[in-house]
């Protein structure tokens, strides 16, 4: 089962088996957002507590259910953004989605010419453990599993920004 090890790297299975930051946060001050993958039923529930003074992610908790990829990606995301300033979080989202984007939207052409954008998004961003999710791009159907948490995070940021505006 050669290809499978690309998808299910050890670190991913680890996050899947022992997800970080599971739980809930009081709303408010936290903001709660739910994300669905309508195609497979995976759910991500994200509690994001942003400190309006410092614009830092004070705390983050996750709930929901889904496959190993979606749950590991959610766990890894929570670990990556906790305690980080929003500007960095936004950069991380862009970088992660760039990593996945050549294949994510199957509607968007064959990805030619995306290479340079990708490089730009990734430049200077340290993805760390998250890079383990790169193997997912070889399994197009699973890309949405990996990006679900990140799309939900994006939504949480947008809604928080709106609430503060």
């Amino acid at each position, binding site marked *: *089962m050669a*290809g*499978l090890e690309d*998808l*299910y790297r050890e670190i991913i*299975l680890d996050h899947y*088996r022992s997800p970080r930051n599971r739980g809930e946060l009081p709303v408010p001050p936290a903001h709660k957002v739910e994300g669905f993958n309508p*195609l*497979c*039923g*995976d*759910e991500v529930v994200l509690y994001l507590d942003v400190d309006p003074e410092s614009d830092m992610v004070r705390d983050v908790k996750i709930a929901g*259910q*889904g*496959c*190993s*990829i979606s*749950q590991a990606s959610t766990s890894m995301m929570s670990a990556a953004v906790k305690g980080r300033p929003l500007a960095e979080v936004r950069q991380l989202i862009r970088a992660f989605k760039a990593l996945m984007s050549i294949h994510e939207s199957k509607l968007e052409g064959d990805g030619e010419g995306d290479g340079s954008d990708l490089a730009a998004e990734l430049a200077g961003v340290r993805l760390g453990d998250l890079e383990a999710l790169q193997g997912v791009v070889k*399994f197009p159907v*699973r890309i949405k*599993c990996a990006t679900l948490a990140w799309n939900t995070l994006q939504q949480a940021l947008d809604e928080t920004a709106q609430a503060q505006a």
Partner: protein
Amino acid sequence: MTALDIAKLKRDFPILERKVNGKRLVYLDSASSAQKPLAVLNAMDECHRNYYANIHRGVYTIAEEATAAFEAARRKVAQFVNAPRAEEIIFTRNATEAINLVAYSWARANLRAGDAIVLSHMEHHSNVVPWQMLAAERGVELRWIPLAPDFRLDLSNLDALLDGARLLAISAMSNVLGTINDIRPLADAAHAHGALVLVDACQYVPHVATDVQQWDADFIAFSSHKLLGPTGIGALWSRLELLEAMPPFLGGGEMIRDVRLDGFTTNDVPWKFEAGTPAIVEAVGFGAAVDYLSALGMDAVRAHEVSLTGYALEALRDRFGESLTIYGPTGVDRRGGAVSFLFDGIHAHDVSQVLDEDAVCVRAGHHCAKPLMRQLGVPATTRASFYLYNDEADVDALVEALAKAQKFFAV
């Protein structure tokens, strides 16, 4: 009834020669869509190569031939479900559109705020969402027949549910649980309360000999692609008087008798409901598919599936015991060949992904039945489903691949 010769049958399906990852294809996703036999592919090819033309309006030979083939397909489909008249078959895109046709035409013309529609917890989204749209638009009330612990309908409250109902919209066979619902008594109960009965027969018609008259149903919906036919076509059956009384749904060519600047008059049933150029070649393929099934005999098809499903249920239990939870009736009578399960704490997607390495094709997810999944308390299941081209070797391949998955994800 002659038993099916599965080894011979498999050769009718070219795709079963496909290799994935070097392994022969073990296709266990027929509840989602069935593979197509050569008889169907050849019938469509023959139409494309020899007598393709738009139908109904052409005087020339090939248009006449295409029209005759299209209407012959309607007759075949009608006979397949024992419809009294061929005109009672409306060709739609799929079962989903057939149900929407009833929701837009019959229901919007007849239902008012406060009227109720009775559904069940095991319905496919296609037999839920059209009614939710109507409910939101018209203030119609939706009521739900709950699920019993044995994965059958809990009918203890049926009379109360049907009180004041105008429609019972119910699946004949669950695509998740495999449960077969006994339609006739449900139809009798609904009719006794003055409600009409729509049967979502999408999973039933491909697998069990169907008799709309014996059911005493008012509408039934099914899809060609699940019964060995092409995509792009399905059917609504209803009684002629009902269809004649219903307003049209889609407007356009074919469905009119006359059009003037100030209005139009409708064509006869069934054409009144078939606006625009229909799925002509697909109808021919649909007809060829029911011919193929009829030649085998639906009783033989059902007998094979009953026996194979029994074999599968036993093999899964024997091999995996407590590690595997099956969602659906355990007896093989009154259930179809869709077997949904949760496996050893491994998410359905991951199971399916690992199975694909061995070319074993199963479905993972909510199977377009999220209300049911919520009742079951699971986000997703893995589903293996059988059809006439499957045999015990396919089940064995499933079991072996599952054992590999178990090993791979072992904590």
